[in-house]
């Protein structure tokens, strides 16, 4: 039991302040994405929206979901998913766009 307890406390308990900061940055990014949608960037607007969404998702993964404190295997898992999604979406678009 003591080994596991030690493992579980490999990192110091995270203070509450960091989470409020994380939450606040997510709110700011939400405001930016809503504002950007009203600015009519044309075709670029979807790119801007997706970039902001990716940043928000990364913040949630890194801080709320503690990826920052996890071992490398968890980071590698995320890269595998990201790679897989890029391949799925990229390959499908090379088909549909140049058909």
């Amino acid at each position, binding site marked *: *039991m003591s080994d*596991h*307890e030690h*493992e*579980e406390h490999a990192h110091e*308990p*995270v*203070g*509450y302040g960091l*989470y*409020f900061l*994380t*939450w606040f940055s*997510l*709110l700011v990014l*939400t405001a930016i*994405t*809503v504002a950007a*949608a009203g600015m009519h960037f044309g075709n670029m*607007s*979807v790119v801007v*929206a*997706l970039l*902001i*969404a990716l940043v*928000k*998702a990364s913040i*949630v*993964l890194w*801080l*709320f*979901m*503690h990826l920052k404190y996890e071992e490398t*295997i*968890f980071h590698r*898992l995320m890269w*595998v*998913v990201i790679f*897989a*999604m890029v391949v*799925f*979406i990229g390959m*499908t*678009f090379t088909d*549909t*766009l140049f058909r």
Partner: protein
Amino acid sequence: MSNHSIALTAHKDYRGSKLGIWLFLITEITLFGGMFLLYSIYRSEYPQDFHHAAAELNTLVGTVNTLILLTSSLTMALSIAATHHGNRKLALIMLAITVLCGAGFMVNKYFEWGAKFHHHIYPGSEYLLAHPKGEVLFFGLYFTMTGIHGIHVLVGMVLLTVMFIRILGQPNSKVAFVAGHGLGEIEGCRMAFVDASDRVVWKGDEVDGSVQRIDVKTKFWPVKQRFKVADFNQLENSGLYWHIVDIIWIFLFPLFYLIT
């Protein structure tokens, strides 16, 4: 008696359980990833129809729901942090707020979908089918993706409610000592529990020849401000699920509500 008793403690692999949850979350990402792929291809084929159809959606409701889910993610993280700090009361309060936020999200969704149905916009409605193909596809994707996401929110709420009840009052560990062999040695004796100063707290019946085995089950109840690893391990894993549901909404929101 110590020579003949076996302490039964369950082996728990907390790191393994966390890894398992992450693997499950990856299947969730690919589940929604497939639907996002479908969305992006149809959107690139019918950009104008998607823009017209998205104008039907209420951006304000979408934004409010985004704020609700982001806040619930904060309280979820705070609840887990509170367990690490040994603050059981704060953990429970934050967990309750998280579930309430989820309920608020679902209530908003109910009214939002209700308004769509009221305007005869639902999959397969005659009104909708009279619209261009791209708009039909947009609403098909809208109902499917926000619907499956909504189911995930409900599942998360159930999961967190279970966690709440567990932390509130379940005994968080049980150890059983079983004496089977060698009972003959204590035949004719009584078993007793004594406290630190050898005072008898509890005394059992006489152990005679008819006794085949003795099971002693102990339960440990968490006193205020004391947590076991198992408590926050389960809470952390449930929290990971809740956060992934939030991440999916982070992508759904701009793609459905912000393309006017």
